[in-house]
């Protein structure tokens, strides 16, 4: 059973359409991440799901109810805002219990629920403070406490971690993941951070320009990006895009890039239709390994960036810069020639005109 399904939702502000015909499904207990650059419509979509913003068309179904005309408070959802949106004049206790208070839950069961949520989030000692007296991470926990205390059908998170510093962000990310595992409630989570998307999501919808580019599990998104946008948006350092021409050489598909030739094996079946045409090869930095092979590129080492576990190497291959993630032991020197072999099974080919994956 799907917790959430979105059918043909559109949204326009005046003559500008910011969401085009969005279709989504989220299975019960799933964790859907709406991922995209700013302005892609992901937050608008979240607002429409929450009911804070009316859609211009289409249906939002939560559980088995179409909620298009249902007030946010009756959608049985809870939301965590980027700004946390804690009520500054109320104590943490009242903030957490506010939704219950408004629903006229009696005091003792309210206190119980607040206590449980606070225990879960380890904020029991903060209950009598005002939000102004809390740190960013503590506020974040309170905001989550306010969301979970009501036991909703669906959690909505709107970039909840972007106001935190890097270390705390990682901590809270883990916290959210743990919370989701423990509570099993479905989540829709908006972010522009691909790491959050990859680590948290059971399903990721990559959005751009009001359109879902790809909706899949994180692994698929990473390994088989639907198009060059998704491929480029996910992964750090980003995927290398190598322009070339596809040819059939002795019964094997090969990619010519300048003087380099990559032998392709195990790439998509549809590729043969592109023989003789220009294509773009998308190669993840970590699919390189040092040494020659049937599919290898040779270039001059430009920059070497040791990160500890890995060494990032930027290689100049006939004028095109290629990033490669090599083992930490590799320490080439800039200016040296270097040959890297490619694991072509992890390689993606894209149509340079449409940007779509072949």
């Amino acid at each position, binding site marked *: 059973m799907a917790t959430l399904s979105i059918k043909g939702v559109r949204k326009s502000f005046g003559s500008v359409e910011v969401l085009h015909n969005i279709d989504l499904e989220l299975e019960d207990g799933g964790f859907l991440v709406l991922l995209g650059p700013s302005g892609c419509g992901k937050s608008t979509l979240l607002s429409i799901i*929450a009911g*804070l913003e009316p859609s211009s068309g289409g249906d939002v179904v939560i559980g088995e109810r179409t909620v298009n005309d249902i007030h946010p408070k009756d959608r049985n*959802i809870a939301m965590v805002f980027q700004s946390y*949106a804690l009520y500054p*004049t109320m104590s943490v206790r009242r903030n957490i219990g506010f939704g219950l208070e*408004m*629903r006229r839950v009696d005091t003792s069961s309210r206190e119980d629920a607040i206590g449980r949520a606070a225990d879960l989030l380890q904020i029991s000692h903060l209950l009598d403070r005002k939000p102004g007296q809390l740190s960013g991470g503590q506020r974040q926990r309170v905001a989550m406490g*306010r969301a979970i205390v009501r036991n909703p059908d669906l959690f909505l998170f709107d970039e909840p971690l972007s106001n935190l510093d890097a270390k705390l962000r990682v901590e809270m990310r883990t916290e959210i993941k743990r919370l989701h595992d423990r509570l099993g409630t479905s989540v829709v989570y908006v972010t522009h951070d691909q790491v959050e998307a990859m680590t948290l999501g059971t399903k990721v919808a990559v959005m751009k320009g009001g359109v879902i580019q790809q909706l899949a599990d994180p692994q698929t998104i990473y390994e088989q990006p639907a198009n060059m946008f998704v491929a480029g948006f996910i992964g750090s350092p980003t995927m290398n895009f190598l322009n070339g021409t596809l040819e059939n050489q002795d019964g094997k598909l090969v990619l010519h890039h300048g003087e380099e030739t990559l032998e392709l094996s195990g790439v998509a079946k549809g590729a043969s239709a592109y023989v003789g045409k220009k294509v773009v090869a998308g190669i993840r930095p970590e699919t390189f390994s040092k040494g020659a092979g049937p599919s290898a590129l040779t270039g001059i080492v430009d920059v070497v960036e040791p990160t500890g576990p890995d060494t990032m190497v930027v290689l100049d291959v006939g004028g095109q810069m290629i990033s490669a993630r090599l083992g930490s032991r590799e320490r080439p020197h800039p200016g040296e020639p270097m040959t890297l072999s490619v694991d072509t099974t992890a390689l993606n080919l894209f149509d340079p005109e449409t940007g779509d994956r072949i």
Partner: protein
Amino acid sequence: MTSNPQSIMASSRPLSTWDRINPARYIGELSETRFWMYLLLLPSALLIMGVVIYPTLYGFQLSFREMRLNRPDLGTDWVLLKHYQRMLSDQIFWISLRNTAVWVTAAVTIEFSVGLIAALALNRNLPGTKVLAVFILLPFFLPNVVAGHMWALMLDPRLGVINDLLVKVGLLGGYKAWFADPSTAMAAAIIVEAWHSFPFFTLLLLAGLKGIPTDLYKAADIDGAGSISQLRLITLPMLKTVIAAAVILRVIGLVNSPDLLLILTSGGPGRSTQVLSLYAFQTAYKDFNFGYAGALSVIMFILLMMFAWVYVRLSKVNQD
């Protein structure tokens, strides 16, 4: 604090003759001491003393003296608490005090309520609100005197357009002399005052409303708070400081300015709209009794101070 700057300078290099007499050097040295701060404050302190404290103290001492401009024969001796004693048995003072309380409480209540409604409406940023805002703020830009005369004409028992309207819609049987009847004079004056000054609240509250993050209302929507609850539990608490400041300013303004009542009723009919400020004004400029007028002003001053103190206490604006 152990080393003194002079010794540092002296030890670093020998002083030339010019150094010894250079005024800039002395100022420079002075600026390193802790007295510098007070020296910098001195000009503004003197200005405040001259402009604020001196007149206030002068007013205070006036209230302990005989000072009747049209009676030079009485002299200007100290009379201690004579004026204050007179006040205790002065019927008009007590009537004025009561009327002041009614005038201020009713006017502030109406102005705040209407001002808040207007501010909430303007804060919705619906189309046309910019033009509407100008209209709503318009009364406040009118001088009190102009507003007073305008309303005196509109409420006129013979020519007044308001009487005309009320009779036409059937609310009134005949033209009413609003300011001639003690049961309506105060109410009519309060409505004029409220009409004139509610934009003051609109302006301040609107500024306060703009500072409330919209996310709070979204969160409250999801939490299930209706508009009344949102107003009561989010908007008003968030505006607490602005409200306190606005109310105190407005109360001070209302207690201190007699001009509107002077124009509309002169305190009449009878004493039904006599307020303290008007009484003090008349005592000073009709009776020329500046001593008693001074004592009345001192009482107003003390009452206002007490009000502000109690109000700030009760509204707990200092707490956060």
